[in-house]
C-alpha cells in the first residue's frame, strides 16, 4: 500500500510536468526540449520570491507560476515563432539551443550552490492510525488534482479550450473555421510554461534547487508523453500515473537502481505493442 501512495505522489508531479510538453507537441508539432528548463526557471523564480524578496511561500508560488508562464510565452515569441515555418527539425534544434541558453544564464546568475526553499519538515498524516503521507505530499496531490480538474474545465467548457482541441485535431481546418490560431498559440504557451514552472516548484519542495533539475526531468517527461499518446492530454495524465506507480511499485521486487529504467521499459513496450500510445492521439 505504501508503494502505491509513493507512486501516486511521483505520478502527480509527472502529470504537472508533462501536460505542458504534450500541449506544445499537439499545437506546435515539435518536441520542446527547453520545457525541462522551464521547470528550472519556475523553481528559481519561487526561490527569488520567497527567499530573496521574502514573500510568503504560497504567494511566491503563484508569482513564480505567472512569471514563468509569461517568460515561457516571451521565449516562444522570440525563438520559436520566427522559425516556425522552417520545419520541426529547426524548431527541435532551436529548443535544444534554448535549453542551453536558459541553463547557462541561470547558472551565471545563481552560481553553483545547491539551494532549498528552507521549508519546515511537514508532519505525517494518520489515517486509521496508519501514517500514509506527509502534509507536503498531500499538498502535491491536491495541487495536481486541481490542475487536472481546472484543465479539463478549460478544455471542455471555454471557447479557448474548445479552440485548442479543434486546432490539435486539425490546425488548418480550425483556422478556416475562424479560430484565431495566433491567440490560441499564446494561450497554450502560457498554460504550458506555467505548469512547467509549477512542477519545478513542487520538485524543489521535495528536494533541492539544483542546476540539473531540468535535464533530469526532460527524458522522463518525454517517456510519459510517448506512453500517453503524443499530444493526448488525458492520455498523458494517465501515463504519468502509470509510470509513477510502476517505478515505485517495481522497487518491491527489483533493485531500486533500476527504478528509472522501468519508465523506459514501459516506453519500449508501448512502442512495440501500441505505437500510438495508450490513447488514440487526439486531445481527449
Amino acid at each position, binding site marked *: 500500500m505504501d508503494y502505491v501512495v509513493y507512486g501516486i505522489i511521483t505520478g502527480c508531479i509527472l502529470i504537472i510536468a508533462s501536460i505542458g510538453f504534450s500541449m506544445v507537441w499537439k499545437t506546435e508539432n515539435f518536441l520542446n526540449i527547453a520545457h525541462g528548463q522551464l521547470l528550472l526557471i519556475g523553481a528559481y523564480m519561487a526561490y527569488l520570491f520567497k527567499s530573496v524578496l521574502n514573500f510568503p511561500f504560497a504567494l511566491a508560488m503563484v508569482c513564480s507560476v505567472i512569471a514563468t508562464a509569461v517568460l515561457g510565452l516571451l521565449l516562444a515569441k522570440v525563438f520559436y515563432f520566427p*522559425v516556425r515555418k522552417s520545419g520541426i527539425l529547426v524548431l527541435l534544434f532551436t529548443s535544444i539551443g534554448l535549453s542551453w541558453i536558459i541553463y*547557462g544564464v541561470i547558472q551565471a546568475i545563481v552560481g553553483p550552490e545547491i539551494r532549498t526553499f528552507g521549508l519546515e519538515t511537514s508532519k505525517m498524516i494518520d489515517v486509521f492510525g496508519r501514517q500514509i503521507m506527509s502534509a507536503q505530499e498531500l499538498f502535491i496531490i491536491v495541487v495536481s488534482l486541481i490542475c487536472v480538474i481546472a484543465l479539463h474545465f478549460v478544455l471542455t467548457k471555454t471557447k479557448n479550450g474548445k479552440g485548442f482541441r479543434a486546432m490539435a485535431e486539425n490546425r488548418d481546418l480550425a483556422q478556416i473555421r475562424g479560430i484565431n490560431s495566433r491567440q490560441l498559440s499564446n494561450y497554450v504557451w502560457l498554460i504550458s510554461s506555467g505548469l512547467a514552472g509549477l512542477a519545478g516548484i513542487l520538485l524543489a519542495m521535495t528536494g533541492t534547487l539544483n*542546476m540539473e533539475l531540468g535535464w533530469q526531468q526532460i527524458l522522463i517527461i518525454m517517456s510519459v508523453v510517448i506512453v500517453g499518446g503524443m499530444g493526448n492530454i488525458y492520455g498523458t495524465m494517465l501515463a504519468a500515473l502509470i509510470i509513477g506507480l510502476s517505478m515505485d511499485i517495481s522497487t518491491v521486487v527489483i533493485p531500486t537502481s533500476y*527504478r528509472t529504467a522501468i519508465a523506459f521499459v514501459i516506453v519500449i513496450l508501448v512502442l512495440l505493442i501500441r505505437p500510438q500510445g495508450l490513447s488514440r492521439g487526439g486531445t481527449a
Partner: protein
Amino acid sequence: MKKISLIAVSIVTAATLLTGCASSTGGSADGAKASSGDINVGFLAGLTGWLGPFTKENINSLLLAKEEINEAGGILDGKKINTIDVDTASTVEGAIKGYQKLVNADKAVVAIGPETESMLALLKEAPKSEVPIMSAFAGSTELDEVGGNYAFRTAASDSTIGEVRAKVLIESGVKEIAIMVGNYEGAQSDVHRFKETYEKLGGKILEEVTFNPGQNTYNGELKKIAKANPKLVYYSGGIDTAPSIFKAAKQRGYAWEWYITPDVAVQEFIDVIGKDVAEGIKTIIAMEDENNQAFKRFNENYEARFKAKPSGGYYNANTYDLLIASALAMQAAGEASGSGINEKIREVTNPPGKQVTTFEEGLKELKAGNDIDYQGASGPIDFDEHGNVISTNALMEVVDGQWKQVEFFTADYIKED
C-alpha cells in the same frame, strides 16, 4: 521571414556553442598577466556543477600557494608561477577537453584538481603528455593501485577512510547497519572498502539500497531500508539528493542513526537538509591534525588573505600542498616541466631529508643542495608507489547546526589491533 529565421537559428547555434565552451573550458584566472618566463599551472576542476561548492575555496588555496611561492622569489632563479583555472563543469568530458587545453594551448606543467572519474579518464593520457594530474579530493579505491606515474593525490583513499570508519563502528558496538548508496562510481567506491572491512570485522549489512540521483522522491528506497530495521544507516550520495532522503526519513519517523560519506560532510549539507534534520548525523573524514604547525600556519594565512576561515572538509590544505610540492619538485629537478615534477615529487615530499613545512624553507634547503621532506598542511604527504598518501582522520558530528570534531584518529589507527 526567412531572414529572421536564419538570424534566430544562427543566434541559438552560436549561443549553444558558446555555452558549451564556457562550461567545458572556463577561463583563465590570470593568464592574461602571464609573462613568457612564467610557469603555467592548471587548476582543472568543476568550478560549476556538483563540485562547485568545494572548488570555490580550493581556488583560494591554490592562489595562496602561488603567492607564497612567487613572494619567496619563485623557482629556478626567479621564474614565477601562473595559475590558470579551467572549469570542467564537474564532468569527465569537461576534464578531458580542459586537460587538452592546458597541455596544448597553455603549456601547463601540471593539472591540479580532477575528481575521481576525471582522474581515471586521464590516467593514460597524462604520461603521454608528460603533464601530471594531481587530485586533492579523488578518494576512489579505483585509484589505489593505478597512479604513481604522472598521477598523484593528496586525498586519502576511500580504502583507508573506509577501514577507519568500519573499525570505529565495530568498536563502538554497532554490528548491524544498512547502506544507501548512489548509483555512480564515486559513491560505490566509497562504500566498497568500508563494507569489505566492516564485514571482515564481524559487522552485518542488513540491507543495501542503490538509488539514482535526480529522482522526484526516495520513499520506496527508504521503505526498503526501514523493513530491515537497522539502528544505523550509512549514506553515500550527493548533496543534491540529501534533502529528499533525509527529510523524508525524518517525516516518516525513521529513528535510525545516520553516518554519511565524507564527500558531503560540509556546511552546505546541513544548510540544505535543515539544522533540525541534520542534528546528530556523523561522519568520519580525513582531517588535518590541528596540532600540525603547517596546518595552523595555512589556516592563519588563508584567513588573513581572504578574510574568511577555510572550511573543514573542503580539501583546501590538500590543494595548497599539491602546488607547493610541485614547485619544490621542479626546483629539485632543475627544470619547469611535468616530467621534472613526476620524477622528483616523491624525493621532496618523502623521507629521508630535512623536514620543511613551507615553500621558502624547502627552496632554501634545495638551493643549499640538501634533501628535503616536505611536511604539508594536510599531513606528512608521503606518496607511495601508486601516488597515494595516508591521512589522519576525525569523527565529526552535527551539533547545533555545525560540524564538530568528536574524536581524532592518527594515521596509525588502522594499523593498531
